């Protein structure tokens, strides 16, 4: 019996997916559970495994196409089996497919055929020009000698003056970042508020709890964990910040799921601490350590990077004083935290040296206005400077 492969729905919020790469070609044998196709959602790219064994008979949607979830994308049938339109059986459409697939960053699948003249190919090889970066001007877009020569002329200007350059195809996680950040920066009217916050109490709290947390769960407690707790607490008081815009409606999200930006060798990923408001500091620490480990190993599941309602980006350990972050859509705001610096401030009527850090909030002006965001950021300040309030 022929099986129709559909665009899987990999998360509650997933409405469509883009086919990045077919890992099997038409006519290839494929076993159930074998990686079949690389799919990109708006958050992640992953390998989708074949739901059946057989021969990949027909690819219905090709690389680069974006289709709604549950759209048939391919047909798998037994060898020699006649496949009539009516015979095709759609698998039960699960609301959500189990997610064994890990974050896939680089794939070794065969590259797409490039239509190029033999001479153009030879010149490109010799001059190390990536043909996939060239737009062909020949019949049906075939790359001809002139195209390669023009690319050389344009790309590698006077070789003595300018070092030759290497091109990195915009794909995988890089492509997701590029797409989402562009979308956000172009479509979301950002505005930024900054406050310098006294970290004395917060650092003291960290010092007090560190050993105890380590003893209890054998995990490190970081300042970031405390900040997650602070944000979760502040968000409870400001439900409008914990929201997203969809069409002409603002959705206030009941769950408080805080994403924490983690730098990777080749990009950035934002795993999400779900129900951060309901978690103890210890639980936050454990969860975040685990997510960080998975992120470094490229093992985060789609669930673990989806559903965030607010993002924290802490660049303190990278030696940055202050920065304005780009909102991680569809969230409403992102908090950028800089490093803690000992500096003289006016404190209790005199100049004292205190550990200070800049907190910058980027917000979507369609949802919130300056006063609302200011009130939220001031509440963050209040909590950071007075951690016992977290207990209230």
């Amino acid at each position, binding site marked *: 019996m022929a099986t129709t492969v559909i665009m899987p729905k990999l998360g509650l919020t997933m409405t469509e997916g883009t086919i990045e790469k077919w890992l099997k070609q038409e006519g290839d044998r494929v076993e159930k559970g074998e990686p079949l196709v690389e799919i990109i959602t708006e958050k992640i790219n992953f390998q989708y495994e074949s739901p059946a064994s057989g021969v990949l008979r027909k690819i219905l949607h090709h690389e680069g196409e974006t289709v709604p979830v549950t759209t048939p994308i391919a047909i798998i049938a037994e060898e020699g089996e006649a496949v009539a339109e009516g015979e095709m059986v759609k698998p039960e459409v699960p609301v959500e497919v189990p997610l064994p697939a890990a974050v896939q960053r680089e794939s070794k699948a065969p590259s797409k055929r490039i239509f190029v*003249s*033999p*001479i*153009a190919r030879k010149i490109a090889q010799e001059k190390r020009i990536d043909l996939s970066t060239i737009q062909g001007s020949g019949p049906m877009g075939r790359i*001809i*000698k002139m195209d390669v020569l023009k690319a050389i002329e344009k790309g590698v200007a006077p070789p003595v003056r300018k070092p030759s350059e290497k091109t990195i195809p915009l794909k995988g996680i890089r492509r997701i970042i590029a797409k989402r950040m562009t979308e956000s920066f172009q479509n979301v009217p950002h505005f930024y508020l900054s406050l310098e916050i006294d970290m004395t109490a917060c650092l003291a709290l960290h010092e007090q709890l560190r050993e105890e947390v380590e003893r209890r769960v054998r995990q490190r407690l970081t300042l970031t964990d405390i900040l997650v707790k602070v944000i979760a607490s502040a968000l409870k008081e400001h439900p409008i910040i914990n929201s997203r815009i969809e069409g002409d409606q603002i959705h206030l999200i009941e769950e408080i799921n805080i994403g924490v930006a983690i730098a990777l060798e080749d990009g950035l990923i934002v795993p999400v601490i779900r129900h951060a408001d309901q978690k103890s500091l210890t639980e936050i620490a454990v969860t975040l350590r685990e997510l960080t480990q998975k992120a470094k190993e490229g093992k985060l599941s789609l669930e673990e990077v989806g559903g965030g309602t607010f993002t924290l980006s802490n660049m303190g350990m990278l030696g940055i004083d202050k920065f304005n972050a780009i909102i991680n859509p569809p969230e409403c705001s992102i908090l950028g935290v800089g490093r803690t610096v000992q500096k003289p401030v006016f404190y209790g009527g005199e100049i004292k040296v205190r550990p200070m850090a800049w907190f910058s909030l980027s917000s979507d002006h369609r949802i919130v206005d300056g006063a609302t965001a200011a009130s939220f950021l001031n509440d963050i300040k209040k909590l950071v400077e007075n951690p016992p309030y977290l207990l209230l």
Partner: protein
Amino acid sequence: MQNEPKIFDLIIIGSGPGGYLPAILSAQKGLSVAVVEKRDLGGTCLNRGCIPTKALLHEAFLWDAFDQSGLIRNKDEVASHFKKALEKKNAAVQQVVSGLRNLLSRDRITVIQGEACFLNPRTIGVKRDGKAVETLEADRILIASGAVPKDENPVKRDGRYVIGSDDVLTMTDLPANLAIIGGGRRGLEFTTFFNAYGVPITLIEKENRILPKMEREISIRCKGLLAKRKVKVLTEASVVSIDFIEREMPVDLTVVQKGKKETSSFQKVLVVGERRGNIEDLDIEKASVSLKDGFIFVDSHMKTSSAGIYAAGDVVGKAFYAHKAFHEGKIAVENMLGKESEADYRMIPKCLYGYPEAASIGLTEEEATKEYGEVQIGKFPFMACGRSIATGNLEGMVKIISEKKYGEILGVHILGPHATELIHLGTMAMRHEIGVEEIKEMIFAHPTFSESFLEAALDTYGEAIHMMKG
């Protein structure tokens, strides 16, 4: 009194290849098109050039082949065979012309018989028998009026003793002997034609080799072949005087060759020399179109110096091939319709339809060496080709010139059987950047003349199979 001007999207002057092809192309794109023809529909190509000469050559080759095979017992039959050849030629012309008429009417193209002349850059007057009969107006005008022979002193055509190529087509008898002035490809086609029927020929060429526009090796080999067939070839030769005396051989030609003067008598002299643009009766000055060396000057988009006026085919000079006219006509239409395409003269095959055939595409060895420094040559003689041996077509060769680094083909030169057909292997390879190494990977049917193309590609790297090395 004249009627109101008729308005078209495009007026084309001339219905030869440079006129009818753009007419069909633009009509198919939805333009309303008028074609004005003053003589025969289809122009030189269909009526007095490509088609009729090929029909005649074919008949002459047949006679020659039968003669060579010893199948002709009575050589006096040549006169009647020649007459039949003319009839067959007429039938072929009639067929292509009526075919063209159908194509033009299929695409609702208005064909107007008469002489076109410019009244201004947008208006054409049409005359019949010297009387203005119609006025046409269009925003775009394409001049494709062809070329006409140019007389050069002291030899002037009179249609009787000194004839042009048009006169050959209406000849009724073979001449007793013939001097042909002009050793280019058209001169050689007529040489082949009359030689096949056994007419003694003296071929006079002013350059230092016949076929001066083709690969030198082709010129040299061709001269040898003509000598073998008892054609007297005089190069670097020019006619200094011509005298007419009433007798069987009425024309005395005095030719100077390398300082040596010699007078010979001929029954007829055929002039196939220089040509000039056929623009005399067009009132071209009213169109503000610039000329250059007797031809209409165009840029690479086939635009003349006057906005909205284009030209294509023999009337712009450069070379006189119907396929060059087709190409230019197509480029002209594309530019009229807003696509900025340019004519590519390197990709126009040069063809000789004589015996043997010859064809070239791209650069000659000389030109390639000049442009690229060192080049590589692959060559294969038909003598070593199975199909040639089987059919007795042993003369000639395939020569492929390629550049060294990538094996890109720069020129292909073929002398020998079906050269004008085989050349398209070269055209395709060059146009689409298929190098010598890719040719090597192709499977060629055996036995074919085309295999020589493969062997020439192999020979580029000293890998030819059916050939002694060294």
